[in-house]
């Protein structure tokens, strides 16, 4: 799959799931891309660089969300 397709796939999938969730584990993203973690990471890094995705961190765990969708301070268990 080309990067542009992967990007669209990611946006579509996260928007769809976005009704109930705004934060996702890296493994969820790798599953959406259907890639091994190391390969998926390259695509995810690019999506962050482009400002499509953004990081969320509790300090101990990191998650990802579509930029602007996440609540600034919500805790992991709050959704």
């Amino acid at each position, binding site marked *: 799959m080309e990067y542009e397709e992967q990007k669209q796939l990611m946006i579509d999938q996260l928007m769809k799931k976005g009704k109930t969730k705004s934060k996702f584990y*890296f*493994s969820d993203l790798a599953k959406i891309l259907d890639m*091994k973690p190391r390969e998926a990471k390259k695509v995810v890094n690019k999506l*962050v660089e482009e400002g499509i995705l953004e990081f969320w*961190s509790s300090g101990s*765990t990191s998650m990802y969300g579509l930029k602007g969708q996440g609540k600034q301070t919500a805790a992991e268990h709050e959704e």
Partner: protein
Amino acid sequence: MAKHKTPLLDQLESGPWPSFVSDMKQEAEARAKNVNNVEYQIPVDVVEDLLGVLELSFDDGTTHWKHGGIVGVFGYGGGVIGRYCDQPEKFPGVAHFHTIRVAQPSGKFYKTEFLRQLCDLWDFRGSGLTNMHGSTGDIIWLGTTTPQIEEIFYELTHNLNQDLGGSGSNLRTPADCIGQARCEYACYDTQDLCYQLTLDYQDELHRPAFPYKFKFKFDGCPNGCVASIARADMSFIGTWKDEIRIDQDAVGGYVSGDLKPNAGAHSGRDWGAFNIEKEVINLCPTECMRYENGKLEINNRECTRCMHCINVMPRALRPGVQTGCSILVGAKAPILDGAQMGSLLVPFVEVNKESGYEEVKAVIEAIWDYWMEEGKNRERLGELMKRRGFQSLLEAVGIDPIPQHVSEPRHNPYIFWKEDEVEGGWERDVTEYRKHHQR
């Protein structure tokens, strides 16, 4: 006059120990006075409000910090930990109170100039409160506001030539002992290995894609000054393959009392004359030492490299010359399932600068592949090892089982044969079998 009354915190200052409450009050006062005319970029009374919110928590028995957030510097998924107060009207100074992790210098070598630069930047753009150092080893800056973060990052990386540390599901800031810079026990150059891997694994440090946190720590010898065996998902502990070097004359020096045991470290009290039988030979955990007719002998095959004899008689005994490190995996602190010490994975590997540490990196990357594919969200390597068994880890990294992987028979892992490793497999001809064996 303090901004908030803090009777419960004040009580903490009454004990015999130094108190963080006193430290905070001192900083609050220094900020209020501002003798250096710092143009504070965050509220001047941040520390007073911090004392206030802590007193409130002591009083009502609940936390007033919200957990986590989206703050960070662009492109980094770690290093900044968002913290917000849930009583911002009462304590506006700590409405935002984000933590910043800064990579500590290898072996924690500082120049006073660098310490001063760190503190000046933090007084200017943060609360002035630091934690030197956090449990992972990094420099912790406690409390700043969102708009300051990119500014701090810019100054840190451009003027102080230092990077943020790791947080979240990242490789955490690697930590090492002082090693060959100062310590004659060091079996490899901990600082060089720590620094090199930090550079090589920038992506893992700053862009989270692991199931959870991952820590490396580097001890130059089994004395374990950074306690890697208890605190790191992967511990690199210096060791040697050959024999402990013995200087028999110096052994005699300890026996006669000319040399002080433990380099005089226990001289605060009179322990009586040094007794080599009692203090060394009988304390060797594997009972592999003997002192007869003025000669010390060690059965090196049985020695577990515990360092005890060497620590007691450093002038007489030294680690061998064929040095390298052991790699242990899976240690963690007690969040789920209790604390866990590292398990031995590689008894000995050369720590080879010339090859760019290829041998070590091959093990690391195989472990990451295994954990990233098999690990559940928020599962540490040590927990995955327990869930899937040590054998699955060995298979993933392509290491053959050896007796050192078993700490004692029946206690930890059974290594099972697989069908293709056994001649004839699991199938057998039952009729043929019954010809020779009655039911």
